[in-house]
């Protein structure tokens, strides 16, 4: 039986892992390579890196991090943040990442998904979606709208329609982040997660709001997620990946327990 994946998410700025309420008030919390090693040893199933470097040197700094991570851990990892061209995708994949995630750039120019899937295979292309609850309108019938630039810019696009379109264009997976839940530690946005996961045929990663082990349980049951992103709860030592897995296994949820 396929295991549900637990995926620590590392926001990387200027080569350092950082965390705050996302995009605001970030503080450095460690070296991404060392943190990746620790999570690998603790049983993480995959790792996600988001490059939030603002400077022009961002590419070379991040590529160096990716290369060092690839020499250190032997599980899949993905890299996202500001990726919008085939050349940027190629550089990240050649540096050793398994997957690249596209977000705002795909909203602005959706064909990047198809071009990426053609060039590297669908399994490499993750659609990152930031979504905000707005209530149903004619333009946004699901009541969930896609937002970009860290939630600051509304797009007028319906989240479910965008997910289905990205799947048709060749996205191999969706990382679904709720802007409403992100940073709250009050749990994932389960209605949104279940809505998207039940309507696409590709795997969905729940993101935003994890604070307690039972939040992951809910994401995998009620939310029908295939994987769950965790950040603060593991970064700050509240819990470990191993403890999360032990809890989930006790709830009857299939997780990888031998590593």
């Amino acid at each position, binding site marked *: 039986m396929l295991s549900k994946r637990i995926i620590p998410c590392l926001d990387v700025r200027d080569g350092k892992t950082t965390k705050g309420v996302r995009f605001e008030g970030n503080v450095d919390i460690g070296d991404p390579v060392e943190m990746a090693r620790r999570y690998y040893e603790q049983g993480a*199933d995959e790792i996600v890196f988001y490059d939030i470097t603002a400077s022009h040197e961002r590419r070379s700094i991040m590529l160096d991090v990716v290369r060092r991570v690839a020499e250190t851990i032997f599980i899949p990892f993905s890299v996202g943040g500001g990726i919008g061209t085939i050349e940027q995708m190629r550089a990240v994949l*050649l540096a050793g990442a398994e997957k690249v995630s596209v977000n705002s750039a795909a909203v602005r120019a959706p064909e990047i998904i198809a071009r990426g899937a053609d060039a*590297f295979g669908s399994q490499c292309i993750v659609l990152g979606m930031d979504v905000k609850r707005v209530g149903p309108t004619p333009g946004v019938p699901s009541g969930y709208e896609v937002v970009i630039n860290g939630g600051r810019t509304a797009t007028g696009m319906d989240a479910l329609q965008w997910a289905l379109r990205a799947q048709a264009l060749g996205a191999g997976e969706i990382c679904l982040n709720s802007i409403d839940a992100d940073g709250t530690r009050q749990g994932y946005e389960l209605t949104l997660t279940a809505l998207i996961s039940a309507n696409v045929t590709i795997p969905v990663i729940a993101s935003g709001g994890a604070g307690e082990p039972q939040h992951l349980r809910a994401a995998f049951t009620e939310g029908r997620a295939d994987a769950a992103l965790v950040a603060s709860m593991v970064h700050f030592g509240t819990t470990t990946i191993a403890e999360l897995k032990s809890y989930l296994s006790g709830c009857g949820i299939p997780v*990888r*327990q031998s590593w």
Partner: protein
Amino acid sequence: MIAIIDYNAGNLTSVARAVAHLGVECAVTHDADRIRRAERIIFPGVGAAGAAMESLRRMGLDRVLVDQAAAGKPVLGICLGCQVILGHSEENDTACLGLVAGRARAFSASMTGADGRPLKIPHMGWNRIHPRRQHPLFAGIGPRDEFYFVHGFFPQPERAADVLAVTEYGVEFASVIGYRNLVATQFHLEKSGRPGLRMLHNFCRGPWVETTC
């Protein structure tokens, strides 16, 4: 030296890094002479079967692989490499190398998972393997160990004897296959943590016993 065959089918640096991590000398190469001189061959691959076979033929590597396998050299196929060694793939309706009798079949959206819901495709993530036969590849691998899969098609050898291990995802499919000096894993052992590295070690360094048939 282990030759990792480079035929423009995805990113081979992960495989090379994992082999290097084990302290085994390897080269990512499409040079036929280097492949012939190698002690063992790894045949990886990510992407579509049609494009992979086209690249292999264009580079003349299809013949090299068939000859080296026939000559008895240990060969390890990984992921797409585990499908292209079969006779045919449903992906792009592709005629493949035919080193093992059988074909690659597509997971169907009409298949359901353990929870009764439609399968997510590709099969992406960690899953167990259930050995059907003893093989040196499985030394040190336990029943709870899991491996990382990413694929929309699965290998279906014609002969039950060529199935070394099976995995469940909608159907029970052959996740490790073998025929004489050839073995292949549908999962990415270079991305499967400790058990994956152990299996890679078993191929690269372990005593080599041909699968009896």
